[in-house]
């Protein structure tokens, strides 16, 4: 489960730290105490920045770093597609082998495929992604989000 990619992101997180944003959310996983504070900044519908602080396990921390890599600079519509793909992978209970298309979409995030086998850890991997979606809804409004799905 602990792929080198994950460990690298954990030890050297990308984009960590809180910077200016349009909205801020705080999410907690009550069963293990993982926490994240996350801000999004949009320029129109383009994600200008996702900044965050958090504490928790390597999976939740690395996942936030990967999220930053994948989403910053993207249009909301594309970002949502990435998020959906990641969700599908994480809910696959280890039964899904990422194909080329998925690998292209998820880049480093395919390393989390192994995590999907561990129900207790899936929530950790999803923490920052749920926070990002929530922050986006606050920044742009629920409807902006729903239109894109």
């Amino acid at each position: 489960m602990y792929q080198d990619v994950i460990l690298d992101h954990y030890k050297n997180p990308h984009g960590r730290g809180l910077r200016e944003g349009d909205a801020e959310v705080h999410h907690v996983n009550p069963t293990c105490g993982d926490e994240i504070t996350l801000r999004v900044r949009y320029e129109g519908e383009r994600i200008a920045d996702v900044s965050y602080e958090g504490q928790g396990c390597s999976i939740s921390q690395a996942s936030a770093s990967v999220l930053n890599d994948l989403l910053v600079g993207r249009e909301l519509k594309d970002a949502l597609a990435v998020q959906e793909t990641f969700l599908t992978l994480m809910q696959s209970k280890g039964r899904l082998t990422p194909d080329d298309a998925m690998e292209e979409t998820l880049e480093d995030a395919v390393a989390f495929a192994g995590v999907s086998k561990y129900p207790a850890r899936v929530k950790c991997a999803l923490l920052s992604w749920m926070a990002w979606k929530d922050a986006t809804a606050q920044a742009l409004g629920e409807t902006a989000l729903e239109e894109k799905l």
Partner: protein
Amino acid sequence: MTDGTQAPGTPHGLPGLLDTEAIRKDFPILHRTVHGGKPLIYLDNAASSQKPRQVLDAVNEYYERHHANVHRGVHILAEESTALYEGARDKVAAFINAPSRDEVVFTKNASESLNLVANMLGWADDPYRVDSRTEVVITEMEHHSNIVPWQLLAQRTGATLKWFGLTDDGRLDLSRIDEVITERTKVVSFMLVSNVLGTVNPVDEIVRRAQEVGALVVVDASQAAPHMPLDVQSLGADFVVFTGHKMCGPTGIGVLWGRQELLEDLPPFLGGGEMIETVTMHASTYAPAPHKFEAGTPPIAQAVGLGAAVDYLSGIGMERIAEHEHALTAYALGRLAEVPDLRIIGPVTGEDRGATISFTLGDIHPHDVGQVLDEQGIAVRVGHHCARPVCLRYGIPATTRASFYLYSTPAEVDALVAGLEYVRGFFG
């Protein structure tokens, strides 16, 4: 039945250890391998213990030869199953030195036992009734199962919930005991041994103060009954609860011991078959305790299994189990002190403490510690262990917890320490 005496010249030579080689033969699961052939090192006994073959055999024998619903049957299976079920009650009563078998109520787990007491006191008449003019006292160390029932009771009756805080070294802070337990206190409920910190609490001091003000005392012995001799008479409490699955018994069975007068005076909780004397559509009268508190078909096979567990434990001897765990815990505390960045949460020496050790490892999250240990075949628990206020108190999100039992060995402690070193390297 395993004799449990230690073979001379065991590798680690710790005095007081049981012959775990013999004992482990009784536990089928301990011979399992995991993750591609690694032997299982099961250090999650505070969450639940494993079961010896003697217990599984008793349960199978019950189902294969004697099963029928208990009580009031005139056929032979009903008589046999009733004798087995009530025989289990006798065994449990003897195990905890209860003055009477009728003081032993079977529930589904310790949590139900605690809820039963809380509800009885909420519905009771004076002098027991908990209401808005009264106070309920617990501690910051409690398992959620000894917090939430009292929070619900307080919400529903308007009573005030108070608690003892904790000292920095993981013990109850009783310095202001006379202000916490007052004339308004109706009930004081606390754990005998902590499932996170390992602390063994000073029962006498709390009982003395509770009796002074006429408050009832509930002792949560869930982490004590499996590990040390338990004598409800010398405890001096009014109610004692524990749970079968942590003491070599099946899941689905718990115990409430209560003083006879109280069980007689207090109202029932769950209503239904078995707990009645006579029923009309207009009114019912209730059977004498313990049946008054056992509505519906009881966990018959599970009681039989718990009876066999109690026989198994008594056959080895609770004193000797306590000694074994004490020796092992002292050894483990010593070895864990060698691991850099490891911080014990709870008492750091073996005095007045059980065989449960919680710790943090630098800033590596316990989930990661637990998962990497698991990959090496070592099963520990991580998280708040159903006692989140303890984590809040010590400012940590969670701990890693290793907990031992009669079949745990020094070699397993060594494997844990080596595993933790590996974890440090992995995330370092």
